[in-house]
């Protein structure tokens, strides 16, 4: 591997780490922003004795300086110890671990749906053009504009209650059962991402279709599938992958809405519940995980870009 490439990869990784650290400072700092005594926010609604309040204060590091408290929290986070949930009184990390098992398949499933359907629609609309393109762009715009909770209500009414094809709630167990259970929530979550991808994809594909090298390839007798695969899709991959990276954020927070609507106990509904319960250790833990996941995905995308577009490697692009 060339030295420049290694330096570049190192730079990206370092940047990602710096981003996560800065984000964690923000997340931790939030607790200290609570108006009034933060411990009141932590104990709100719980009938606690002064001793208990003192215990909470200590457990949350509120008796320490901001820096000390942050270092303890972050140190714990590095050992996968994110503190205790005030509501569940169990470790945040074990709460998360259980819920990740619901949310991760959900996110992956809906990502696959959004990417496959979105890119297919984009390709069809770019290749066909004309009325097909116009219809597709209307569909894509409507999909982009459909909030996940609206999609959830519609899907529930039609497919779970009306037709009874899919279960309304629960995450299922076993591969197929889970797949079957997660279909509606994944679809509800995928709608907006699908719309965005269809729009961005159509733009990227049609831009590539209009490039000279595509004409040249046509002029050399390359056509049909091979042309699309080698000269259009392959080239549009870089912008698409970048957008997909950004969309993971949408999907991640989409779980908050969709899991609530479908009665799934995943990371998203844990976050929503903890926000309204002001269970700050959990909120901080989920936020940190969300940020780490998002940064990780986008760093992976960044690292994958040189494989997709060799020009990135020498810094000729970007």
């Amino acid at each position: 591997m060339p030295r420049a490439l290694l330096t570049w990869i190192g730079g990206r990784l370092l940047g990602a780490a710096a981003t996560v650290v800065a984000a964690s400072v923000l997340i931790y700092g939030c607790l200290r922003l609570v108006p009034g005594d933060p411990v009141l926010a932590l104990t709100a609604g719980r009938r606690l004795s002064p001793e208990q309040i003192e215990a909470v204060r200590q457990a949350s590091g509120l008796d320490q300086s901001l820096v000390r408290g942050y270092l303890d929290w972050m140190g714990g986070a590095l050992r996968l110890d994110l503190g205790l949930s005030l509501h569940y009184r169990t470790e945040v990390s074990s709460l998360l671990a259980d819920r990740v098992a619901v949310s991760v398949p959900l996110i992956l499933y809906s990502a696959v749906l959004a990417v496959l359907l979105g890119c297919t629609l984009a390709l069809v609309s770019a290749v066909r053009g004309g009325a097909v393109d116009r219809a597709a762009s209307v569909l894509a715009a409507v999909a982009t504009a459909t909030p996940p909770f609206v999609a959830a209500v519609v899907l529930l009414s039609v497919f779970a209650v009306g037709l009874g094809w899919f279960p309304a709630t629960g995450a299922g167990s076993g591969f197929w059962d889970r797949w079957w259970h997660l279909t509606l929530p994944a679809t509800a979550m995928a709608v907006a991402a699908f719309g965005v991808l269809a729009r961005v994809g159509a733009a990227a594909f049609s831009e590539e279709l209009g490039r000279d090298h595509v004409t040249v390839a046509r002029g050399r007798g390359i056509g049909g599938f091979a042309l699309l695969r080698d000269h259009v899709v392959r080239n549009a991959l870089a912008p698409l992958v970048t957008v997909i990276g950004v969309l993971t954020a949408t999907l991640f927070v989409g779980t908050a809405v969709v899991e609530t609507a479908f009665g799934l106990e995943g990371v998203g509904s844990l976050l929503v519940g903890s926000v309204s319960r002001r269970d700050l250790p959990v909120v901080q833990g989920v936020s940190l995980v969300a940020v780490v996941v998002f940064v990780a995905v986008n760093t992976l995308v960044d690292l994958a870009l040189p494989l997709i577009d060799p020009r990135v490697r020498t810094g000729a692009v970007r």
Partner: protein
Amino acid sequence: MSGGDAIRPVLTATALTKRFGSFTAVEDVGFTLMPGASLGIVGESGSGKTTTARILVGLERPTSGTVVLDGEPAAGGGARRRRARLIQMIFQDPYGSFDPRQSVARSVEEPLRLHFPGPAADRHRRVAELLDRVGLGPREGAALPRDLSGGQRQRAAIARALAVEPRVLVLDEAVAALDVSVQAQILALLEELRRDTGTAYVFVGHDLAVVRHVTDEVLVMRRGRVVEHGDTERVLRDPHHPYTRLLLDSVPSPGWDPGRPARDRRALDALDTPTPTTGHGEDQCRSSNG
């Protein structure tokens, strides 16, 4: 040179060197330009022509070396306005050098407002004059740059540069993007302006034929250095440096042998690199700009 009544050079460049990181784009370039004179800079792509031009107008700060304008050194920052009054530039891409949102007349007016504050009516009169001078009417003046042809845009760019009545005009590939018939129009206009206003030109280009027609003196650059400097007719008729000869041989003409420049070039490259077994030549492996 600076003595008494003798005409002093309007522009003197001394030992200009510009490095980008470890890469030397321009090295030890120097020349003087007398009022109303025309100097050509030629060379292959990447030889440092544009960089030199940008140093002259102050868009690039030289790593070392000085530019003296009308007897005074052109320092950076603070002297920007004085420098602007003395030296102006025409870019290769006439469209890109206009704010696409402004009418051509407004673009020409803008430097007038900066350098000659005064009543608006005077300014408008002057704009009309300038446009007329380069062969543009009020209709073209009111148009946006995108509604004009390439030639018209380049005329407008010249009008704008002339607005501040500079002593020196730097033209970087100013006619390279134009069709031959239009190119001839612009060249004729430039020649006429030089006669009438006594503006001195630094004409950067790679087309030797054009340079031959518009300059009195020429610098031949290769890899950032001046390899030959002299009277244009002399250089083109009787090149001293093998590189200049290579350039001349590369220009097609009846009975032309395209194979010869290739052979000459290999010979020249071999001269530069005493040990020719360094893998692939620098022409095969591009540097970072792309």
